[in-house]
């Protein structure tokens, strides 16, 4: 059994990509309903200029860059991009418009990863769907971050084919979840037609 947290399609594989994180931003403290609560903004924040500038880009090898870091350094990365060394990641609250404006064909990237900070954040499913159906991305679509076994089936149906299971969780056990349901009702990304168009029903 391979000791890796990465699933591609139905198999556990070694990761050939290096994930490049953004440097940490300061967490915000907001006053709410009379109580001081600490929470990370889930919808509002985009990476700051400081974070983008301070990101260290490895000079060799296959790397997954933060979307905004890529856009900032686009020109200097073109040779490596042609060499299939550059992929992107973005978080569920980031907007895709700057990417779509800059790249006519997003299939120049061999891989796009969507980072989900909390597994309950269901935006990842809509983003996967949009990347596959509306923006016609056909290469590897990876889910990373707080990725757990029990959301894999939904991720697969939303167009993901690669899943980096959260550290400490059993990726071999997680594989089973991809087979949770044999004939789903509704059409989605993986199986386009609803069951009543696929099967004769009584």
């Amino acid at each position: 059994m391979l000791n890796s947290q990465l699933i591609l399609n139905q198999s556990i594989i070694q990761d050939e990509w290096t994930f490049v994180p953004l440097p940490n931003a300061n967490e915000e403290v907001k006053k709410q309903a009379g109580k001081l609560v600490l929470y990370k903004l889930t919808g509002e924040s985009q990476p700051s200029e400081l974070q983008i500038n301070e990101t260290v880009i490895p000079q060799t090898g296959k790397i997954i860059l933060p979307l905004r870091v890529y856009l900032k350094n686009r020109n200097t990365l073109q040779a490596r991009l042609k060499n299939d060394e550059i992929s992107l990641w973005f978080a569920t609250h980031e907007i895709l418009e700057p990417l779509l404006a800059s790249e006519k064909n997003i299939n120049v990237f061999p891989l796009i990863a969507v980072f989900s900070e909390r597994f309950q954040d269901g935006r990842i499913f809509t983003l996967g769907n949009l990347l596959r159906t509306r923006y016609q991305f056909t290469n590897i679509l990876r889910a990373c971050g707080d990725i757990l076994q029990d959301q894999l089936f939904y991720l697969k149906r939303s167009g993901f084919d690669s899943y980096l299971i959260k550290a400490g969780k059993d990726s071999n056990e997680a594989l089973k979840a991809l087979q949770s349901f044999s004939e789903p009702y509704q059409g989605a990304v993986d199986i386009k037609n609803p069951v009543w168009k696929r099967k004769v029903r009584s």
Partner: protein
Amino acid sequence: MYQYDVIDQTIVNERVSQFRDQTARYLNGKLTDDEFRPLRLQNGLYIQRHAPMLRIAIPYGLLSSKQLRKLADIADRFDRGYGHFSTRQNLQLNWPKLEETPDILEELSKVEMHAIQTSGNCVRNITTDQYAGVAPDEIIDPRAIAEILRQWSTFHPEFSHLPRKFKIAVSGSKQDRAIVQAHDIGLEFYYDKEEKMAIRVWVGGGLGRTPILGSIIREHLEWHHVLTYCEAIIRVYNLHGRRDNIFKARIKILVKNLGIEEFRKQVEAEWLHLKNSPNTINENELKRVAKFFTAMPYEKLNDQDSTYDEAIQNNRAFASWVKRSVHLHKQKGYRTITLSLKPHGLAPGDATSAQMRIIAELADLYSFGELRVSHEQNLILADVKLKDIFKVWEKAKAHQLATPNIGLLTDIICCPGGDFCSLANAKSIPIATSIQEAFDDLDYLHDIGELELNISGCMNACGHHHVGHIGILGVDKDGSEWYQVTIGGKQGNDASIGTVIGPSFAADEMPGVIKKLINVYIEHRDPEERFIDTVRRLGINPFKEYVYA
């Protein structure tokens, strides 16, 4: 009613295995509390005050006698011999054991039942009019589309982790009985100018902490597009609904913040991409599902029965029950009967396993073996012949199922409240029973006439208190339980949200407060005027002044 084929059955069986595995992983420490929470919730399992609570799905409130018997068996084997019918037309068990829930789900799967998506941040059980298919004012029977929506929403991958819960109601009658305006999406069916089935789509309604009635997002939607249009709405919500504050996460907040015009613009733009995509329904699929909801094999009867008329003449108790519990029917010689789960002094909406078996027997003998659950938490026999009504009454009465209070003050809609629910700020059942006891005089109750009284134990408004003619909300003040009173709420086509009359009351004051409200009504009412009409005519001031005098 709808019957599973091998595809439906396989999905439910696979769900049982999936949840058995998830529960085992939780119990052996492989899943944390936080990781297990959404999984158990999407299977209807709450961790409550005394024990877990399991909410079993009753899709659009339709049940067979066989299913009700199974629920009775489950209540005996896994619980304490009773269940609670909820305002979402579901059944809740208050005392199951966490370790046994996979076994309960397995038992349910044997009668084509489950607990899928009865809670959690996903599309919940689709609800509709309890008189669907039999109501004289029905334009379109909404159940086929409700079933199609059920299948489409079951494990919808894109909408499995929404910002918050999502409720859809469908209605096809002149008088709305499904409260479409108080749902995240409300679908109102009608025939358009070309005599084609069309849908008026409401969005952004909801009760809870911030009660808002929905807005019309689309006046005319061809029925083929109902799924893709819902997908467009929920997609915009999934991407842009707030996820940082649970109290502002419902779609109603997004619609309110954006304004209906802007929200509509975004949805329509999204729908341009989704329109005519594979989930678009076609004639064949509608026909296939609709054939499960065709009219019962009715006998040709007169719309009059002499034994029934004589029983009304000769038996005052029967006559007063008929007045409240027997409703007109599309088919001549048939009536629809509501069995009251609101006997005075007991928890509203509760039924014992013995009562469930009696009701199943009544359904088999007199109503084609089918039952409905109403969002008012009563059970309905939809298709009873006039000549059988007296027999139904006798049996129902012998088992405390014939309190003649349907639609009256003591037909209280009530959540489980602080006795069971860990979300509640205050108890609700003891308030309901103390009011029922204070209005135990049936003649007086009938004289007061139609009145809807709703009680919720907290802001989450499971008792729909905002749309009660009188609404009672349990609130927590410095650790003790208080009750805030609203009047003037109403469900239906002319829905409204009630107005708070003033500072809240202690529990023991509540029966007296209700009596005072009723006194003001009786003093000021015009002939034939209902409580709600008097409140609408006079405003809340006369009520407020008298109650706080």
